[in-house]
């Protein structure tokens, strides 16, 4: 029984969903503060915080020096003592410079001390634009292997809005992957909704089907949906499941889907070995193996850096063709 819900924004661009979520949280909670390179006067490399300086002032919207480790550390200290900092990495790739602060200080703080660290790190990530080895990476797996961090990677504007607000409210450090390729390409309606104050596991069926369960997140969910259209013409119905939240992980929906489809495949843009697809395959091959009637295949980036040349890059990112071929093999 679908309830009627008000549409707040029609056709909201993914990038605008991020701005809106930040603005709404900052208006609601005076302890929310933003830190990042060039986010103040300039509004950030992607202009997501344009005009925030004017509205919220230079105490709450802070340009940082070029110092990712220092920034994450300072935000962690401030978070322990009552602030809710949201850091913008200029590109997700740069978090490697603040890796220690994140995985050792922020991630372990609650378990070690019972002091919570309500911190969000916004990570503009992903490829598809020929931006080369240091502006294209998909590095979620490092953080998924770092207990204490929550990790989200929304594919749709409405999820992006809701999850960013929930991430800010959550008492744990949340790594928020936003996909640059989707910034100005993905649009969806924003409906009136409840904003949970915790990030919980979710797996959303974005297309129903009974032949194969496809699992993906971020940009790759859009590729999966495209590929499912192609397969439909062959009479094959793919169930496309999107994982906007990677940690905590809720696989119950996926297991249910596999009961029906008996086939599973995972798509990710991250490099292959020890990518998060491996964890999903491992969980399925342990907990749902008796329901499977085919191998669990992963369609991923190969184990290499990202080329600057768009042709070389495109040859690496799972394409609709590669995805369809993978599915066909699983079903063969």
């Amino acid at each position, binding site marked *: 029984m679908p309830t009627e819900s008000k549409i707040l924004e029609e056709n909201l661009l993914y990038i605008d969903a991020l701005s809106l979520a930040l603005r709404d949280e900052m208006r609601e909670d005076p302890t929310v503060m933003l830190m990042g390179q060039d986010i103040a006067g300039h509004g950030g490399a992607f202009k997501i915080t344009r005009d925030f300086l004017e509205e919220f002032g230079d105490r709450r919207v802070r340009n940082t020096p070029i110092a990712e480790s220092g920034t994450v550390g*300072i935000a962690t200290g401030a978070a322990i*003592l009552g602030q809710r900092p949201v850091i913008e990495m200029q590109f997700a790739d740069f978090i490697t410079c603040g890796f220690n602060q994140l995985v050792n*200080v922020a991630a372990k703080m609650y378990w070690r001390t019972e002091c919570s660290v309500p911190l969000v790190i916004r990570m503009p990530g992903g490829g598809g634009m020929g931006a080369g080895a240091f502006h294209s990476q998909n590095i979620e797996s490092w953080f998924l292997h770092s207990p204490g961090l929550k990790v989200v990677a929304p594919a749709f504007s409405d999820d992006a809005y809701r999850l960013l607000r929930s991430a800010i409210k959550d008492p744990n450090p949340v790594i928020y992957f936003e996909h640059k390729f989707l910034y100005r390409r993905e649009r969806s309606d924003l409906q009136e909704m409840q904003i949970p104050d915790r990030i919980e596991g979710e797996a959303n069926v974005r297309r129903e089907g009974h032949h194969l369960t496809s699992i993906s997140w971020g940009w790759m969910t859009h590729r999966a949906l495209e590929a499912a259209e192609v397969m439909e013409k062959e009479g094959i119905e793919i169930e496309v499941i999107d994982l906007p939240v990677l940690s905590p992980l809720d696989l119950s929906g996926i297991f249910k889907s596999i009961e029906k489809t008996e086939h599973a495949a995972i798509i990710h843009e991250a490099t292959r070995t020890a990518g998060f697809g491996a964890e999903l395959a491992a969980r399925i091959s342990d907990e749902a193996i008796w329901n499977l009637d085919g191998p669990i295949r992963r369609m991923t980036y190969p184990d290499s850096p990202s080329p600057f040349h768009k042709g070389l890059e495109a040859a690496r990112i799972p394409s609709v063709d590669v995805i369809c071929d993978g599915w066909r093999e699983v079903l063969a």
Partner: protein
Amino acid sequence: MLRELHAYMRLTREWDLRYEKMFKTGALSKWYSSVGNEATTVACGSAIEKGDALVSLHRDVGAILRHYVNIEELFPDIFPEKMSLVRQPLGGDSRDRLFRLACQMLGREHGFSRGHERSYHYNHMEPDHGLIHLGMISHLGSMIPVAAGAALSFQQQGLDRVSINFIGEGATSTGDFHEGLNIAAVWKLPFILVIENNHWAFSTPTSQQYACDNLASRALGYGIPGVEVDGNDPLAVLEVMQTAVKRARAGEGPTLVEAHLGRHRGHSEGDDSLNQVPSDELKGYLDNDPMDLIEARLLSSGVVSRAWLQEIKERSANLIMEVVDEAMAMPEPTPNTDRNTYAD
């Protein structure tokens, strides 16, 4: 004032001596001694107040004890008349804090980290008493930005509180020293970083750690005051710290303090790293034991008697023996008392 500083230094010294002994008998698997750091750490603890943030490393129990504990309350008969206190005590139960600190050292369930974390790797907060204490993680340098972040939270809230943090001279080589101090300077955070320069990092002498004449000179590169001070002289350290605290509370930003100390012990008890220290250098440190220096000063100024010094020493040792014994008798954590990875 000297008497007050002395009493905390003595308590700190006896604390370490007790654990050093336990290490030797095998009751403890590891111990990092703070013997020789007491003048600096106690003076630093004396410069902060309720609501300030203390962020400590592995040789800073002097600052912790000075901040946690009210010595007049512990030994009411020794300090019968009110001393002219350098600072107000926090309030709350001093002896219980001492006991829980012992539990923490011994990995007991009543320790601040409930056995999850080792020694000084814990946080302890008592909002009612304005006690804000963040302990270390092992990775050196990491706490500098975090401590600056505590200062940021004060700035955001419009409070005139300060955050102080310590660092060994070895750990000044870390990137976080630079990143943390630079951001703190740019944002004029109420933050004080105290370098405890004992001239050795594990087995590495300063000549293999840095090539500058002194580390206080790095302050120039951050546009903040940098002060060298004799870390064996608690009054000198206190004065420097009070200036720095005043500056921080006034919104004028951070100060870098370099306190020169002696290396009295091995890096950790039972290792042979002290072998690397040339014997005449070591002798110089031992001859300038801050405990001896302050007692000589107290005696020569005629404020106290040798017997009084002896008494407070014994009382400190006994009190610590007591809380350690009590802690030893406490239960160890069990998987049932284990803790979640995530806050919920």
